[in-house]
């Protein structure tokens, strides 16, 4: 990947600045990764059609991407994109959608687009809530999560979107977070080159709504960074060697209140303790130590600690999950025309 | 001149194709034709119906509220449609059904003709052509078409292997009545 300065990308690919995204929003990171992927692959932006639905993610291409963009109705971007792609297969078609847009109201279109294996790259921005409309619960909100419509905790379980789309038949499926910019950019490049339906879920920060969800009580200006660090803390990458030199202590009260007693209890092991944000457990104490099993035993009888969690517990897997080949929809339609066409004068 | 014809039977008896042959034959002869078929769930299993209106001038009544010809190929079809027969209507009914008809099934104000369509079709080698036996009988009775016209349509719409038996069935029906 060649690195060019930010101004180059802005002038070439961005129609309008500043954006109307909230400060610290993940959308800018995703737009950035997208245009870098296009540039690296030398795809002329005149050939690119970005289609989006409703929600914050829909605004990434429309109006900010300087190329053709179609800003459609809620959840339907993939259906619109399918129509455009089928009629003009030269369009490099990319759908930007969110978790509410793509997996809630548009979930049916998502699985069917994957099943058809239509050559569309779908980037699903997952902020685990309906950000634009005021932080309501989404089909991706974690169990127990606090949102404006689940004030007592989310009673539902979230979708595992990559599994869903993989089993529906997509030929490229990946999940990254806005922390993993390099991997994300590389993945978008792979998706754009895949002759079939590509799906990339991006866990994204929404400082406006996620502070409530993840119990981030600090200032709003520190929220974006904390959420990004939380993404790092709460995920692991498929295929990468896993570290096993740490544990999490999930406190009964606030981690600050418990910190001292954990420190005292473990003083013999000389561990490094740190308070971290974790998507599954909230604010907890991370214990770095080489003597994992002993520390675990030692913490068992500490009243202040609700439970001790292993490194992988509650973590979300990132990586590329599917890379395969299946007949592509538009190509098949053209094959049918070749076979039965009497006089061809379509596109 | 206007005939309002209901062809009725059970799904699989060739009711819809009979309606199609008859309509096409009338149409080729230059008559105005409006044909309606029963559709959807109605057309699968259960009863099937084809309604053919043929006239020598434009047709305005698009639905058959009262028929002047009814072909009934099954008992349920007979019972469903006999009530829609106009006074003096021609009713062509499968002969094998007669023994099942009770007194209240009969109407005295219609002209009922029994057609041994099943028996004839079986004798020809395939019970499926009973519908064509009925059509042969029908055109003889109403006198709008000669059998050659219907045979032409059969040749146009049916694949070659089945043409001969269908044509034989039309001719047999024509000579029965």
């Amino acid at each position, binding site marked *: 990947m060649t690195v060019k300065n930010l101004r180059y990308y802005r002038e070439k690919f961005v129609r309008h600045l500043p954006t109307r995204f909230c400060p610290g929003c993940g959308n800018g990171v995703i737009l950035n990764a997208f245009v870098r992927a296009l540039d690296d692959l030398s795809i002329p932006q005149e050939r690119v059609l970005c289609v989006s639905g409703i929600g914050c993610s829909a605004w990434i291409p429309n109006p900010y991407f300087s190329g053709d963009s179609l800003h459609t109705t809620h959840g339907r971007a993939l259906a619109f994109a399918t129509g455009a792609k089928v009629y003009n297969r030269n369009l490099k078609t990319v759908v930007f959608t969110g978790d509410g847009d793509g997996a809630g109201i548009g979930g049916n279109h998502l699985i069917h687009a994957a099943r058809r294996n239509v050559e569309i790259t779908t980037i699903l921005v997952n902020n685990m809530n309906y950000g634009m409309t005021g932080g309501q619960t989404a089909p991706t909100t974690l169990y127990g999560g606090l949102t404006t419509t689940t004030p007592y905790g989310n009673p539902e379980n979230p979708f595992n979107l990559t599994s869903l789309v993989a089993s529906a038949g997509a030929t490229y499926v990946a999940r990254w977070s806005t922390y993993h910019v390099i991997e994300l950019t590389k993945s978008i490049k792979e998706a754009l080159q895949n002759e079939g339906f590509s799906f990339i879920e991006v866990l994204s920060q929404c400082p406006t709504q996620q502070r409530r969800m993840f119990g981030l009580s600090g200032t709003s200006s520190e929220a974006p960074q904390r959420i990004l660090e939380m993404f790092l803390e709460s995920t692991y990458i498929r295929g990468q060697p896993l570290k096993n030199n740490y544990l999490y202590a999930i406190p009964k009260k606030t981690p600050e209140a418990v910190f001292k007693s954990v420190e005292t209890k473990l003083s013999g092991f000389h561990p490094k303790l740190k308070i971290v944000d974790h998507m599954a457990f909230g604010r907890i104490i991370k214990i770095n130590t080489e003597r994992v099993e002993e520390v675990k035993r030692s913490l068992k009888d500490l009243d202040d600690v609700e439970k001790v969690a292993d490194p992988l517990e509650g973590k979300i897997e990132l990586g590329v999950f599917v890379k395969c080949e299946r007949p592509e929809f538009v190509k098949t339609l053209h094959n049918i025309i070749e076979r*039965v066409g009497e006089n061809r004068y*379509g596109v | 001149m206007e005939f309002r014809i209901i062809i009725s039977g059970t799904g699989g008896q060739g009711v819809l194709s009979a309606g199609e042959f008859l309509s096409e034959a009338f149409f080729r002869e230059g008559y105005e034709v409006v044909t309606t078929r029963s559709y959807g769930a109605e057309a699968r299993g259960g009863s099937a119906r084809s309604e053919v209106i043929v006239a020598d001038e434009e047709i305005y009544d698009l639905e058959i509220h009262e028929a002047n010809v009814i072909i009934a190929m099954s008992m349920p079809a007979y019972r469903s449609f006999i009530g829609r027969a106009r006074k003096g209507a021609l009713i062509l009914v499968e002969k094998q059904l007669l023994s099942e008809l009770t007194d209240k099934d009969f109407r005295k104000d219609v002209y009922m003709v029994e057609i041994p369509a099943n028996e004839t079709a079986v004798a020809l080698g395939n019970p499926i052509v009973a519908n064509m036996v009925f059509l042969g009988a029908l055109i003889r009775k109403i006198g709008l078409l000669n059998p050659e016209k219907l045979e032409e349509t059969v040749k146009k719409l049916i694949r070659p292997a089945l043409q001969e038996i269908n044509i034989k069935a039309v001719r047999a029906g024509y000579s029965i009545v």
Partner: protein
Amino acid sequence: MLKAGKHLVLGNVACAEGAIRAGCRFFAGYPITPANEISHHMSIELPKVGGFYLQMEDEIASISAVLGASWAGAKAMTATSGPGFSLMQEGISYAHMTETPCVVVDVQRSGPSTGQATMPSQMDVYQAKYGAHGDYEVVALVPWSVQEMFDLTIRAFNLAEKFRTPVLLMADGVIGHIMEKLVIPEQVEIVDRRRCSSREAMPFGTDDPSRVPEMPLFGEGYRLIVTGSTHRESGFRDESPKYHAMLVKRIREKILKAESEISDSVGYYLEDPKIVVISYGATARPSFGAVKKARKGGLEAGLFRLRTLWPFPDREIRRLAEAAEKLIVVEMNSGKILREVERASRGCSEVLSLPKIGGVLHSVDEIYKAIMEAYQ
């Protein structure tokens, strides 16, 4: 495709044949009775002419795919019936706002809800006009014969392309499902959308008196922004009162100002009418039979047949109301267009209703009887 000449075909097949002749090369739909034969015929014929047939996961996806294809350059259509038409309202509203040409066929069946799914009605006439959300003007055509299923489908495409607007073909289950004569001409008149003449052209604004902007397509290097949100002439989103008023005024006026061009109706025996039957679609057929019968009996009865439901021919109805003593509105619903006739006639004559529900069509005699009663 059927050859030019005379054929005995199903109304729905005539619609598909008309669409392909009008240049339709993209169809997306979802199975529903009584519109299925349009899909069947399109799925057979479109690939033969280099076109695309898609069966989508539902009606919302169908209309959405149609609109996406339209911006990629296709003349595109979908066909459905009542329940599917309800689902399509979201996309139809989007088509109005983004000025996307397309054709939506509703072969009306009897509702509410699943109702009499296999039986005909004319119950969606108001849904056509008011079904979608927001402010817009609808163009809706209504065929009374298999021939008009063909002719009006072609006209629907021509109007859609000319005015950059969705056009509705409000067929009914009677006309969709009868087989009768169709005469296919050697040539049909075809209108194509006005494409952009320069890079500076504004895709959502124009100085042209037609108020219809030129239409660029995706993939031509315009860096086009299309949005269902309120936008400026360039397409750039701007939800200010000024731009919203400007946009909505223009998309309504482009239809309203062309009303005399779009609106289409046919009068029969209207020279000296005492009783005028007003009808449309399948119900106009027995209405015509009844009026002819009344004329034979020496009654001064006439028929006014709408071939476009929307825009509604207010002026013509007013003129009829002034000339006639009584108007009888014959329709296969519980009395809908009746209200439009009452409104447009402004009390100038008595307006009677001859509704029909239950999935059956009026007979000639029923309508004739109503004319007789009105006459006394």
